[in-house]
């Protein structure tokens, strides 16, 4: 045992945070090995060292019963390093014991930042695996909530948890997820999004797996028969499979009156269409289909464009790219400087560009409507998909006017129709059409009205009875 500890000491000699402590108990020597950054020094001093010094030499073999810790296990020699990196203290006596003494390195449960809601819970996931799992378990107090643990990443050995409701989940889906996770061959994962590449559909701008920082959203998804993946050190949890319509829903929808939610969902659908088609429609009517707008408006548009030296497409591209640059800088900047960037970019630059005759006022309106409509959705992946399709539609509209938009729409529709999320159709419940599922698609009925689960996700379709 002594030789092995010396070997470890030699291995980590360049690191100052690995502690190798030798304690003499009678004639016997006990070695304590741990990483001081990953372990709680209070715990090490108060609960291990204090108690260990009182232990007699004859009791060393019975150490497992003497030191109190819920998470204490006897491990093999080769597992010692891994456990040390997980925040365990390794005690080398006749056998090797690992005692959990993790330091609290996370920021605790904080408020939601990116998926804000007016009503409902405000707690968000953090970087701590156990906290995240706890936030879900507090909501679903059922033995059927399974959290299978695995490790991913050769160097990072990141803990991931596959969460599902054993009485609801579709077995084929679960197996598919497990099989895909097995194919992951990577050095390390820093965030849940690293797993997306292996689990998501390729060759599409649209997200087929959603990620969320809301525990209530994950709980809802699990009760629907979906599968969630928690990744240690990631404040986002992956939910799969995901349908396009899921992006038009927010958790807020389930905390407010259904009649109001139906209206908001129609607005979101319009916003989705406006975000993709507004600049394309403007380009089509100002470069091809002049007949579609009344003469007064046509003359007004011409008056606004008279000083602009660029073709309409270039003008639209300049504005769109400027907006994306502004948005990107706004995200990266701290909140104090961010507002200054917004004022400079949005107000001063916009006004100056119009005055200088580089951009027409109507183009600013068109791009602003399109960009703001896109930002209705909290999913950054969907916003990116919208952005790509906006550019595609703009180019097609410039090339062929309304015919180009029609062609683009057909391509977009076929693409979405063929798209699958873990083998399930992305346009569900519209294609294939399911009448029962329409109760929570665009029009929302009372939560009591949704008696059945999504048949694609669960064989156990009947929900619990409401009293």
């Amino acid at each position, binding site marked *: 045992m002594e030789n092995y500890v010396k070997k470890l000491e030699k291995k980590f000699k360049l690191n100052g945070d690995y502690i190798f402590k030798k304690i003499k108990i009678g004639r016997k020597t006990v070695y304590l090995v741990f990483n001081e950054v990953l372990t709680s020094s209070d715990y090490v001093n108060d609960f291990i060292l204090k108690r260990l010094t009182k232990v007699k030499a004859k009791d060393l073999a019975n150490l497992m019963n003497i030191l109190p810790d819920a998470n204490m296990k006897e491990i093999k020699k080769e597992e010692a390093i891994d456990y040390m990196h997980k925040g365990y203290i390794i005690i080398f006596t006749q056998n090797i014991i690992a005692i959990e003494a993790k330091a609290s390195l996370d920021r605790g449960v904080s408020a939601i930042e990116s998926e804000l809601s007016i009503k409902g819970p405000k707690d968000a996931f953090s970087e701590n695996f156990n906290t995240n799992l706890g936030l879900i378990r507090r909501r679903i107090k059922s033995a059927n909530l399974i959290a299978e643990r695995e490790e991913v990443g050769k160097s990072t050995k990141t803990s991931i948890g596959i969460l599902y409701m054993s009485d609801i989940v579709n077995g084929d889906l679960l197996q598919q997820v497990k099989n895909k996770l097995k194919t992951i061959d990577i050095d390390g994962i820093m965030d849940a999004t690293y797993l997306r590449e292996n689990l998501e559909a390729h060759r599409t701008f649209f997200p087929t797996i959603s990620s969320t920082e809301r525990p209530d959203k994950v709980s809802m998804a699990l009760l629907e028969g979906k599968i969630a993946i928690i990744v240690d050190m990631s404040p986002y949890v992956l939910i799969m499979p995901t349908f396009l319509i899921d992006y038009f829903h927010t958790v807020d929808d389930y905390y407010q009156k259904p009649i109001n939610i139906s209206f908001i969902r129609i607005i979101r659908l319009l916003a989705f269409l406006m975000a993709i088609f507004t600049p394309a429609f403007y380009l089509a009517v*100002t470069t091809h289909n*002049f007949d579609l707008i009344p003469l007064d408006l046509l*003359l*007004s548009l*011409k008056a606004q464009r008279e*000083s602009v030296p660029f073709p309409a497409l270039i003008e639209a591209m300049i504005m769109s790219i400027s907006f994306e640059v502004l948005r990107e800088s706004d995200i990266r900047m701290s909140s104090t400087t961010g507002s200054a960037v917004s004022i400079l970019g949005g107000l001063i630059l916009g006004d100056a560009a119009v005055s200088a005759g580089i951009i027409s006022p109507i183009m600013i309106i068109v791009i602003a409507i399109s960009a703001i409509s896109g930002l209705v959705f909290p999913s950054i992946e969907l916003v990116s998909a919208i952005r790509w399709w906006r550019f595609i539609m703009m180019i097609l509209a*410039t*090339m062929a006017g309304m*015919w180009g938009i029609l062609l683009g729409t057909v391509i977009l529709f076929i693409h979405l129709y063929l798209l699958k999320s873990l083998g399930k159709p992305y346009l569900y419940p519209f294609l294939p059409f399911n009448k029962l599922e329409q109760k929570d698609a665009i029009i929302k009925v009372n939560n009591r009205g949704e008696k059945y689960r999504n048949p694609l996700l669960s064989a156990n379709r009947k929900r619990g009875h409401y009293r």
Partner: protein
Amino acid sequence: MKKLLILPFITIFLTGCIKYQELNNMAIITTIGIDKSENTYEITLKETIPKKAENKVAYEYKYYKGKGESIEEALQDASDNASKDIYLRQVQNIMVTNPQFLKKVPSYLKNSIVLFRVKNLDKILRINSNYKYLNNLAKDKTITLKQYKKNNKKKIPYIKVYKQELLIKN
């Protein structure tokens, strides 16, 4: 699948039925004047050029002339003489010295065009008045191309100039 996508692309882009035009390079014609001397039609196209003035749009006008044995030929000639692309799909008024010419008006011109009879075409066209002013002036006497095609015995309002002002008469 890819072949299926190529087909509509080819149909749209290679058939030549689409034409890219920049709004700035387009002459929006709002009024057409038709006259005839001997056997030649003389066409005058009045382009409305919007100019951005403070908080409103002001209008300037530009004229293109063309001659031909038919109205279409004369329109083509006027288009050829213009430095910009001529846009005739939103013409609002047609002024003719003789209502008989209206029988030869090309079918692609909108049926909602308001008709006027004039004597001195050139003088009336060059008075700074936009199409809205003329249509308001005619009020209940207005007759559209569609109405005239249905019943060519209907009277087309007559415009004349009196002290630099336009007057409408039946």
